[in-house]
């Protein structure tokens, strides 16, 4: 009996590898297992190795696993590229069609199963994926009926016969593998799950859902990996709410259109990845100086330039904090789980309106695309707060003067009116301006407006700027990370604690303005600080040094080969320090 399983399916892109993983995962999720899936893919549609690694557990999981129990291979390349992850009792289920060869340096077993042949006999070789699911089920001793509902959802439109054929394929794969099992390997029987119904989604789904919950009714965006799912979800859902999504001609249009719509009074979003963010930078400055609310998502991927467009990286941090010329108040938040991605996105719209500034939601490819089991989301926790948006009638001004949209106030936030309101007329400009929005080069005015804008974010109210699991007052080590590294750190931490080390963990959720006091306290109470991040220069570590000092304590643990951290890599790095 095992309570955790790591399964990977691989082959050429365009062969249905994704749907194989998807069907397998959805069925198990519905049985109440916790899943975490990570896809390895290339920036092309057909051809090139792709794989989908799925971890199944009876308890919560938030990272991919170090090793692998079952590898389903549709070509030799999949075996050659991935077999090293298999542990000694691991199993390779390979399509007999390509006469799979087992590498010499592995103790794992290889079974050649005629996936393609069985599928072809049943009608079409396309169903080889189903045969593979059946074979997997035999190894796990799973009841294959669990797949029926999922198969029906996916193929139901094509008719009962197609559904039946696909189920036949699963059964044939199951039976064939059972024959193999009777002669050799043991099954890996999975412990029963709790049967609870939980969501199974990617971070981008949660961001999009969070946007809807947070009152977003307009999106302008340009397609890009790994952000497009946000646009694709909203374009399906916003029409039912009267809203719209426009796929713009470029990233600049996406950002400026979202600014226009926010100025017009609609909560609006744009989302992209690094290359798009580079193009949006001038517009982000416009949002800053005109104090127009704006929510922007940056799903980080490998940079610079086109970089590694389908790979994990966390290298936009500095650009998001400091990007745009000149100086503006800005909020950069970094959810570390899918749940947080939902709540933080909804909250981003409140912050954008309350502080009248751009809010960047930083994600990364692993968080945005990693598909995982998510605990129920609570809509009651979502609030709509619109800050100093003027809702009531405005009295007529003396001498027909403009409304003081940029009134210098104690907290820096000025009343905001939207076009269409009587007596609210004012001017908005990216040129430095006076309280009515009229261009002004006066030195006194410049200082007053700059100070006012920065006053807004001096004490921003942000729920849980740092996720903490820090029970030690004198920790041997403090781990720090942001976005998707939370899972690996959590796992490494458990192992290190078992080894007798005292470990604290802080995951930074509010990147800017940096939660200095809170982080400083944690740094002070640790002997060493290990900052775990997917970039080559240690951007978060550098920001910590800038804000909290203690450079002597800080060690950077960096990975920038395009792949997410594995738990043992974080564990080993820390062990080396002691």
């Amino acid at each position: 009996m095992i309570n955790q399983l790591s399964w990977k399916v691989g082959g050429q892109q365009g062969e249905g590898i994704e749907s194989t993983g998807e069907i397998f995962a959805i069925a198990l999720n519905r049985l109440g297992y916790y899943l975490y899936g990570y896809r390895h893919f290339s920036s092309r549609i057909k051809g090139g190795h792709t794989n989908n690694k799925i971890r199944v557990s009876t308890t919560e999981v938030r990272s991919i696993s170090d090793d692998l129990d079952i590898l389903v291979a549709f070509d030799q390349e999949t075996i050659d590229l991935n077999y090293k992850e298999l542990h000694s009792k691991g199993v390779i289920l390979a399509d007999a069609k390509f006469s799979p060869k087992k590498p010499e340096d592995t103790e794992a077993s290889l079974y050649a199963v005629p996936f393609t042949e069985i599928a072809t006999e049943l009608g079409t070789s396309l169903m080889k994926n189903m045969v593979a699911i059946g074979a997997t089920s035999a190894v796990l001793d799973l009841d294959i009926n669990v797949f029926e509902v999922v198969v029906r959802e996916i193929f139901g439109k094509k008719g009962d016969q197609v559904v039946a054929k696909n189920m036949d394929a699963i059964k044939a794969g199951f039976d064939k593998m059972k024959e193999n099992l009777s002669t050799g390997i043991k099954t890996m029987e999975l412990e029963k799950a709790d049967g609870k119904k939980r969501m199974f989604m990617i971070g981008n789904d949660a961001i999009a859902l969070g946007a809807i919950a947070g009152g977003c009714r307009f999106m302008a965006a340009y397609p890009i990996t790994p952000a497009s799912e946000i646009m694709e979800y909203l374009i399906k859902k916003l029409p039912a709410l009267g809203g719209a999504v426009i796929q713009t001609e470029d990233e600049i249009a996406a950002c400026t259109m979202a600014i226009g719509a926010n100025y017009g009074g609609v909560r609006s979003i744009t989302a992209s990845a690094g290359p798009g963010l580079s193009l949006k930078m001038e517009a982000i400055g416009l949002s800053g100086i005109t104090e127009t609310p704006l929510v922007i998502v940056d799903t980080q991927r490998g940079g610079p330039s086109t970089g590694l467009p389908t790979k994990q990286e966390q290298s936009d941090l500095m650009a998001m904090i400091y990007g745009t010329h000149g100086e503006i108040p800005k909020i950069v938040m970094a959810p570390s789980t899918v749940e947080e991605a939902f709540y933080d996105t909804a909250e981003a719209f409140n912050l954008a309106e309350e502080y009248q500034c751009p809010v960047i939601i930083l994600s990364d490819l692993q968080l945005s695309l990693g598909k995982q089991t998510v605990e129920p989301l609570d809509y009651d926790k979502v609030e709509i707060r619109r800050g100093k948006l003027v809702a009531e009638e405005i009295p007529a001004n003396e001498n027909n003067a403009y409304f003081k949209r940029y009134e210098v106030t104690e907290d820096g936030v000025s009343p905001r009116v939207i076009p269409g309101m009587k007596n609210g007329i004012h001017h908005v400009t990216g040129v430095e301006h006076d309280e009515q929005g009229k261009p002004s080069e006066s030195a006194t005015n410049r200082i007053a407006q700059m100070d006012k804008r920065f006053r807004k974010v001096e004490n921003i109210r942000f729920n849980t700027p740092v996720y903490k699991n820090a029970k030690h007052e004198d920790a041997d080590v403090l781990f720090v990370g942001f976005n998707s590294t939370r899972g690996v750190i959590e796992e490494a931490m458990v192992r290190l604690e078992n080894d007798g080390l005292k470990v604290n963990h802080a995951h930074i959720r509010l990147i800017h303005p940096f939660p200095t006091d809170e982080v400083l306290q944690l740094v002070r109470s640790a002997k060493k600080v290990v900052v775990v991040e997917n970039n080559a220069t240690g951007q978060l570590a550098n920001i910590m040094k800038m804000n909290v000092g203690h450079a002597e304590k800080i060690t950077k643990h960096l990975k920038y080969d395009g792949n997410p951290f594995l738990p043992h890599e974080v564990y080993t790095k820390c062990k080396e320090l002691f």
Partner: protein
Amino acid sequence: MATFKDFRNNVKPNWCPGCGDFSVQAAMQRAAANVGLEPENLAVISGIGCSGRISGYINSYGFHGIHGRSLPIAQGVKMANRDLTVIASGGDGDGYAIGMGHTIHAIRRNIDITYIVMDNQIYGLTKGQTSPRSAVGFKTKSTPMGSIEESISPMKMALTVGATFVAQSFSTDLKDLTALIEAGINHKGFSLINVFSPCVTYNKVNTYDWFKENLTKLSDIEGYDPSNREDAMQTLMKHNGLVTGLIYQNTERKSYQELVTGYSESPLSKADLDLDQNYFDKLVSEFI
């Protein structure tokens, strides 16, 4: 009801004396009053450059954005509130150089806004460099040997990318220009109005006199039919683009707002932001 005076805000423009943009400003104010707008129901979104300052010189909501991006901002404003009248405006550098991509796509998208380009064939605010509207051979600080690049023909370009309203005017023809802006505002869809607005400081070639000599009024061409795109194209080619009046209008094609699925009939800015719990539950259940 508001008169054109209600659209004045007493800010003194920083344009040079004699600049063509003064007349464009006056025509916009008159057109706004003539179509029955109240100042708060007009939003003027402008780009960067001398003419881009115009949003600050009209008593209405105004947004002076970044160089070349008045159109996407204006489209966002219109999507947020379909009851507003939205006019985007700027110069030929703004609309046909740095912002050309947006111009083409705004035309083909056909959101119901009006775009007024003050075309002076030169970069004025940066003190005299060539523009995409400068003629071949035109000498400027950036083309001391004369421009060797072909000049863009915005009217022909608009016709080829699916424009539903294409017009051109000359800033001194205040009456005609005002009427065209009114027609553009009333047009259900995207309207492009290119206005020859001479730069008296840096363009010594395309002067008021030059335009008077070279422009042909479409109303003087017998039988000109602005609903015929082919004729429009031929006329533009024949006159090297130097015509004024309504060049082309397609009243049949629906605007973006009329075509987009589900889009709110009342201003989106007034939408209720709370979701029904059942609706939220339904969204969630789709992930289970």
